[in-house]
């Protein structure tokens, strides 16, 4: 069995009877077990996965299949899964067994996907290296001394190492796209509102968006089709036309924003330039565009995300669920000790930063100012999309960096998100896909589309992947 088979290949293998869903689940469970050193998983749900595989095999025998029937996937550990630990990689939720499924989990299960388990991540999705997890760092299967990116590092590394056919992730400021690029896989952050946030543990509510991490853009589209759509349980989820990948080659106008390309390291620029030439050779036209407020995105993002996080994380009080300190003498002790013991240092830093930005005397200078610049950043994109269909940019300033290189330098870590936060602030869909290698590590490119323009960026991604093999490269890491 090929551990790096994409979902389309698995679909035909299952339908042709080359292997059963049960065999497939056994195969992946064996690989997950053997790859324990990568630390991709927080929880493995073997029993329920095998039971679901039996049901899938029956559905396949009865010819009652959908595109995902029998496909083994894993969920980032911030999607609530009924009866299964949902820790958010935090000590605060180390004992939290969700009483209900997230809409994303529910929809993927109803579409036939089998949940293998829950993947590791940065604590509360706050991080760009997967080093802030209470359960320890995830290793990058391309080079175990390097980080897999974050915060959906476990999901990206699991797909890259062939431990699941695909995974869910979440993206607040780049948490799907950057790990996808560091691990050489394909990740999609949908338009804000495309995918329901119900049951997805909140970090920054005006930015958080769930999405797929997969081997190909085509697989990401298949998963998105199952995940997307309005949900009465999330009043911010949009009513929008379903994503439709169009394989016809309508020539597109692709914007090249100078603010993303000018300061790029020359070895990264060389890889990105080659990707741009490939897209041009496919008949698309690349033209320069300007997004003048890009440089402010990191500052704006860390104020808004921090402010929303400080509000969202005030719910962890040691009373209703999660970690509770032992023997508090009074109510303040209960709150304070439970929170101090339950949260890690990065989470505390963000809560404090956000509280600072919201506090009396600083609100106008920080929070309000950030919201004003957020509008300017969004307007830059709206103006650009009057001229072009999609934008082509790098995902990250570098390839995966070594563990501990930035963990003591929060600002240096935050600056890793320079190319991903602007689309998050504007609520735009963005696809990260492998486009080359630098010093044996994968490089990703980012295609940003207009609001609800997933069809365009996924179609372009499919065209690119039909023409290139970067997505078909796999790490030499082998654990069998």
């Amino acid at each position, binding site marked *: 069995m090929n551990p790096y088979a994409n979902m389309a290949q698995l679909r035909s293998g299952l339908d042709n009877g080359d292997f059963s869903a049960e065999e497939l689940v056994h195969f992946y469970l064996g690989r997950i077990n053997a790859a324990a050193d990568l630390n991709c998983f927080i929880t493995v749900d073997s029993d329920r996965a095998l039971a679901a595989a039996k049901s899938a095999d029956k559905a396949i025998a009865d010819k009652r299949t959908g595109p995902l029937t029998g496909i083994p996937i894993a969920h980032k550990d911030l999607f609530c899964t009924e009866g299964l630990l949902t820790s958010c990689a935090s000590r605060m939720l180390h004992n939290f067994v969700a*009483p209900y499924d997230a809409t994303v989990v529910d929809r993927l299960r109803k579409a036939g996907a089998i949940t293998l388990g829950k993947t590791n991540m940065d604590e509360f999705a706050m991080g760009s290296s997967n080093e802030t997890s209470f359960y320890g760092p995830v290793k990058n299967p391309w080079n175990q001394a390097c980080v897999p990116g974050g915060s959906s590092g476990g999901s990206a590394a699991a797909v890259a190492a062939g431990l699941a056919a695909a995974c869910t992730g979440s993206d607040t400021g780049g948490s799907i796209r950057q790990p996808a690029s560091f691990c050489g896989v394909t990740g999609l952050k949908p338009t804000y509102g495309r995918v329901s946030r119900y049951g997805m543990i909140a970090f920054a509510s005006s930015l958080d968006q769930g999405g797929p991490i997969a081997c190909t853009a085509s697989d990401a589209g298949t998963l998105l089709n199952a995940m997307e759509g309005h949900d009465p349980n999330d009043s911010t989820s949009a009513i929008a036309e379903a994503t439709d990948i169009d394989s016809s080659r309508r020539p597109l106008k692709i914007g090249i924003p100078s603010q993303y390309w000018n300061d790029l390291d020359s070895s990264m620029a060389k890889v990105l330039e080659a990707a741009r030439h490939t897209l041009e050779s496919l008949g698309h036209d690349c033209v320069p565009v300007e997004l003048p407020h890009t440089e402010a995105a990191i500052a704006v993002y860390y104020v808004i995300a921090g402010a929303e996080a400080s509000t969202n994380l005030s719910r962890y009080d040691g009373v209703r669920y999660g970690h509770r300190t032992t023997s508090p003498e009074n109510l303040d002790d209960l709150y304070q000790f439970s929170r101090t013991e339950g949260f890690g240092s990065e989470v505390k830093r963000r809560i404090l930063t956000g509280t600072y930005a919201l506090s009396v005397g600083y609100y106008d200078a*920080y929070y309000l100012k950030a919201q004003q610049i957020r509008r300017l950043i969004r307007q830059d994109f709206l103006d650009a999309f009057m001229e072009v269909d999609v934008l082509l940019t790098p995902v990250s300033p570098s390839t995966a960096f070594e563990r501990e290189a930035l963990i003591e330098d*929060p600002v240096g870590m935050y600056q890793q998100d320079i190319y991903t936060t602007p689309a998050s602030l504007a609520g735009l869909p963005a696809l990260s896909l492998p486009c080359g290698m630098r010093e044996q590590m994968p490089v990703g490119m980012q295609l940003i589309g207009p609001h609800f323009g997933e069809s365009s960026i996924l179609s372009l991604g499919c065209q690119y992947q039909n023409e290139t093999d970067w997505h078909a490269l796999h790490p030499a890491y082998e654990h069998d």
Partner: protein
Amino acid sequence: MDQQTIDKLLSLCQLSLQPDDREKLLRDLSSIVELVDFMQSIDTDGVKPLAHPLEVNQRFRPDEPDTSFEQERYQAIAPQTRDGLYLVPRVVE
């Protein structure tokens, strides 16, 4: 950013700190504030704040009776409950 501001923030956030961590936190928060101060260089005169990327109105569900949360199931994950109530240290003597 100074130690007094840190104390105020910690109290607002219901967090506490080991004495050894204070210097590092002050350093980190100061560098974060320096990073976000870049915003002050942007002219935002007359720009309306943007709170939500899509600026659509939130949609309300039809006002129809539906099943509600089951108290017992939701309280099963609470650290301490009794008779359907969440327990906390005594607040009123």
